C-alpha cells in the first residue's frame, strides 16, 4: 500500500525523568510524613502489616512503592514492581495523565472524576493512600501550588505549617 506508514510512538525521556524525580521526592516525603504527622500515622496504622501500595502509569510508566513493615515502619521501597509484591496498585491510564497529575495541572479528585485512574486492590486503602498523598503535597508545595493539587487547602495549626513542615522537608532531603 502506497503511503502506508508504520510508527512506533517513542518514549518521552524528559517527561519520564521528571516523573521519576517527582515520585522519588514524593515517596521519601511520605516516608518522612509517616514519622512526623499524626494524621498520616493514623492512616498507616489502619493498614495491615507488610502492606504495600504503588502509584504509577500504564503500561510501564514510572512508579513508586510505599510499604509498611511488621514493626509498622513506613518505607519508600523504590520503583521495581517485580522485586516487591504490591497489594494495592493505583495506576494512571497514561503517562501524560500522570504528568498532568504531578505537574498539578489536574488535581487528584479531578483526575479521578475524569476517569484517569484505576485501582486494583482495596478501595478503602486506596482512599487512604490518596488522603496521605494530599497531606504530603501540602507539606511539600507552596500554598498556591498545593491548592491546584488538592481539592481544598486544609486549615492546619501554625506548628503544623512551620515546625512539622520543616521536619518533613529535612527528612525528605536526608531520606530518613
Amino acid at each position, binding site marked *: 500500500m502506497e503511503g502506508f*506508514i508504520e*510508527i512506533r*510512538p517513542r518514549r518521552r525521556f524528559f517527561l519520564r525523568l521528571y516523573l521519576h524525580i517527582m515520585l522519588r521526592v514524593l515517596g521519601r516525603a511520605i516516608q518522612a510524613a509517616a514519622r512526623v504527622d499524626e494524621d498520616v500515622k493514623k492512616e498507616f496504622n489502619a493498614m495491615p502489616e507488610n502492606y504495600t501500595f504503588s502509584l504509577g502509569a*500504564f503500561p510501564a510508566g514510572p512508579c513508586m512503592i510505599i510499604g509498611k513493615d511488621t514493626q509498622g515502619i513506613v518505607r519508600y521501597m523504590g520503583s521495581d514492581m517485580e522485586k516487591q509484591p504490591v497489594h494495592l496498585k493505583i495506576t494512571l491510564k497514561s503517562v501524560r495523565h500522570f504528568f498532568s497529575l504531578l505537574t498539578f495541572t489536574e488535581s487528584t479528585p479531578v483526575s479521578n472524576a475524569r476517569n484517569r485512574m484505576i485501582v486494583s486492590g482495596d478501595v478503602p486503602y486506596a482512599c487512604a493512600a490518596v488522603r496521605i498523598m494530599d497531606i504530603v503535597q501540602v507539606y511539600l508545595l507552596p500554598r498556591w501550588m498545593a491548592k491546584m493539587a488538592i481539592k481544598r487547602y486544609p486549615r492546619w495549626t501554625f506548628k503544623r505549617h512551620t515546625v512539622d513542615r520543616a521536619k518533613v522537608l529535612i527528612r525528605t532531603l536526608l531520606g530518613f
Partner: protein
Amino acid sequence: MNTDNFTFLCRSRSLFGKNALEHLPFELSGMGARKVFVLRDNASESSDSIRHLRPAFADSGMTLGLCPPPDQNSGTGTDILKDCYRTFTGKGYDSIIALGTGPITDLAKALNLAVSLGPEVFKRGIQPQDQAKSLLPFAYLPTRGGSGRESSCRACCNAQIFELPALAPDIVLTDERLMAADTKENIICSAFSALSVCCETFVFADNPMAKAYASAGISLLMEHLFPLLETENEWNARPAAVGNKYRRNLACIAHASAISGFLLANSTSIISFHLGNFIAENADTSGLTAGSAAAIFLPRVLEQFAGNTPALAQLLLPLGGQDAFSAVPPVQQAAAAIHILQNILNRFYQISFGAVPRSLGDAGIDKSAVARLQEKIQQEDIWTETGISGAGRDKIAAVLLRS
C-alpha cells in the same frame, strides 16, 4: 412506560471530553490490542488529528499503522479494501481505528469483517453462526458530525449491507482536538438526523434505556447546535476558524450523532429518518440532505403517530429544558414540543437565508412531485423493515402531504 419487557444493547464504550484521546491505548490494550491499524479520511488530515494521535500512543508500547486517506485515484472501494486487507494481515495488525466519519467507518467495518470472518464473507454474506462470533477491537474517532450510522451495527460495502451486533464499534471516542472544520450544511445534516432519531425514539420506544439515551442526545443537540452555527455572521462564509469553542460544540454534535447510532442499532422503526433518507435519494432536488428532510418530517410524524400522548408531552423536557417544561400546562406540552421542533426549522431557514428548508416546498418539491414520491414509497420495501402496516402507510401519506 412499559418497563416489564425490553432489550437494549449498546456494545460501545463512549469516551468523551478533555484529553480523552490519551485513554485510547489503555482501552485498546484491555482488549488485547498491540498493533493498531488506522484508517483515516481527508477531514482527519485537515484537522491534523495524527499530530494528536501519535503522542497519545507514546509510552504505550503499541505500534500504529497509518493508512493514507483514500482519494479519487485510489481506485474502487473493493481495491482499497483488498489493499488494506493485504497490509493488515501481512504486517500482523490486531485492531482497527477509524479516524473520520461516513465511508471511512464503513471501510473499517468491512475490513474488520474480512480479517475476522474471512474475505469469503462478502460472497456468502453473514450467516446465523456469525452472530455469536466476535470481531477484532474497533475504535471509532469522529472528526465531524457524522450520520449516526458510524456507531450502529450496520456496514455498507459495495452496495452490500451487513448487519451484525459485533460490527458496532467497541469504543466511540470523541475528543474535541480531533474535530475538523465542517460546512454548515454537513453540521445541520448530522444534527437533524440525530435529532430525528432521538426524538422519535424518545416518543415511541417503550424502553426506558433507549429513552435515557435519546434524552441525552436531544439535550446535547439543543445545547450546542445553535451556539455552533449562530456565532457566524455570514451563512455563506467558508467554514469557521476552528477555535476551541467551535471544536467543543462540534464534538457535542458528534457525540449526539454517535448516540443516535446506538439507538438506530436498537430500533428499525425510525420513520422520519428512513423517510428523510428515501426522499434525499429519490427526490429531484439537489439542496435537500437526508438530515434536513428527516427534520421536516419529524414534527408531522410525531403529530400523526403520537397525537397528544404523554410521551410526546414529555419530549418537551429535553427539548425545552426544565423551565419550559414546568411553565407549560400538561395539556399543552405535546403541542409545545411540536412547536419547538418547527421553530428550529424556521430559525435555521432564517439564519441560512433559505438554504435550510422548512418544508418540502422550500426544498423545491411541489405537490405533483410529492404524489410521485408517495407512489414510489408505497412500492418500496423500506416499510417492511420499519414494521409499518397498511394503516401506518396511510399516515405516512398524510405526513408527506402536510410536510
